[in-house]
């Protein structure tokens, strides 16, 4: 499984988009070991207005990302999570690290044309560090 890590995000949202993270939160929180799109929709509808197609699209995307697996049940699919929340967070943390210390992307970054950092860029980096510090304190 490879994911694009989302900068400035915490927890599930490091690897998942907002609705993807919400759905996985529901799946893990309600211990849904096997579920249809309608099951998740029923829970989410209590919290917000959301269309069936939106949930279906997002669940399909989670399946395509390898976070859910599925099997056919008549005309519908039944989904189940591949990993527990703990396993997912463990692999996410490892991936954050791998992304930081390795990977082709990091080498490409180092291969960029040499240019001295401007004061603005240094301010941005300091703000990033400060933000992470506040996140960790929170």
């Amino acid at each position, binding site marked *: 499984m490879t994911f694009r890590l989302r900068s400035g995000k915490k927890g599930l949202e490091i690897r998942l988009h907002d609705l993807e993270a919400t759905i996985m939160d529901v799946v893990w929180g309600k211990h849904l070991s096997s579920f249809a799109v309608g099951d998740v929709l029923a829970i989410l509808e209590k919290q917000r207005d959301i269309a069936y197609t939106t949930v279906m699209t997002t669940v399909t995307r989670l399946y395509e990302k390898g976070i859910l697996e599925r099997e056919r049940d008549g005309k519908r699919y039944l989904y189940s999570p591949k990993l527990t929340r703990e396993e997912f967070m463990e692999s996410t*943390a*490892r991936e*954050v*690290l*791998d*992304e*930081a*210390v*390795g*990977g*082709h992307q*990091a*080498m490409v*970054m*180092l*291969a*960029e*044309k*040499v*240019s*001295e*950092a*401007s*004061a603005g*860029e*240094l301010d941005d*980096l*300091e703000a*990033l*560090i400060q933000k*992470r*510090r506040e996140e*960790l304190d929170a």
Partner: protein
Amino acid sequence: MIEATFPLLGTAFVVLIVLPTFALLAKAGLVMLERDEVGGPLHGLNLRYVLLTGSSVLPIAWLLSAGLHQAETAKSALACLFDHDTAELCFEPGFFALMLAVVVVASSIGVMRKHRGVRVSSTDAARTLLRRVARITSSDPVLASLRDRVVVTDDDGFALGTHGLLKPRVFVGTAFAARLSDEMLASALGHEAEHVRALDPLRYLILQLALAVNPFGRFLLEPHATRWQAAREAHCDREAVILGAAPLPLADAIVRAARPGAREVVALGARDTAVLKFRIGMLLAFSERAPARCCHQGPSAFPVAFVLLLIALLLPHQTGTAALDALHTGAEHALTYFWR
């Protein structure tokens, strides 16, 4: 004229053809290593270093040794070089080795000139900072290795860096240190402790010398050398965090050291944007999860480089100097061809 043919043309051939060819081969190896996605940019740092420096140092060592080997007579090398009437055969390879040595020394002068020392201060501000550093290092067992290795300078343009080849010391600028909290300073010293442990000033100097003696091949290797140096800085960040430095204060110290005004361009690494972003990103990740020694570092650079150098020096005495003979006859044939 004929006797000077090989020493002059041979040296030119080495500088124009032999060394750039080795640089090209080293570049091929470096590209393959850097493309290896397992471990990323910190992968194979020592092997990359051996390729970067060995591509210049090893052929020069072999050629120098081969030249001196051919100049061997029962007399000393100097007698062989200057007593031309009785040692005609040994004059040309001996003079070639001398020419090569002159090229190496001449190209090294520029590099050595750039290595200016840093003035150690003993003002009140410096003494206060030294006491602060002593307090920090004594409370941290990892930084204990820096005891008596940290000195202070009042030089306004100096931030923080490691200097000294065989017994490196960490220099801390008083003005820069005043802008750091104790935690930032401790983390920054942790970064420099890895430079001290690994004799990085010596490594960096040898790398610069190796590039300087290969003026036509260095443009092939310089981007890889820059990346190696950046990766080396990131490696020191990671080692510091593994040994207990706090990642976010270290990130803060790195950004502050990169602020314009500091003359010390190697202060806690480079000012280059991409490198800074990479290192800060890495440290932000480390703040969530402590790093482990993930990447294969290969055997230590210095022992491997020493063994290779020894082999290059001894090889001509054991296996002959056929390559130098080919260079010798090639240079004379080339002159004959262009002369007629």
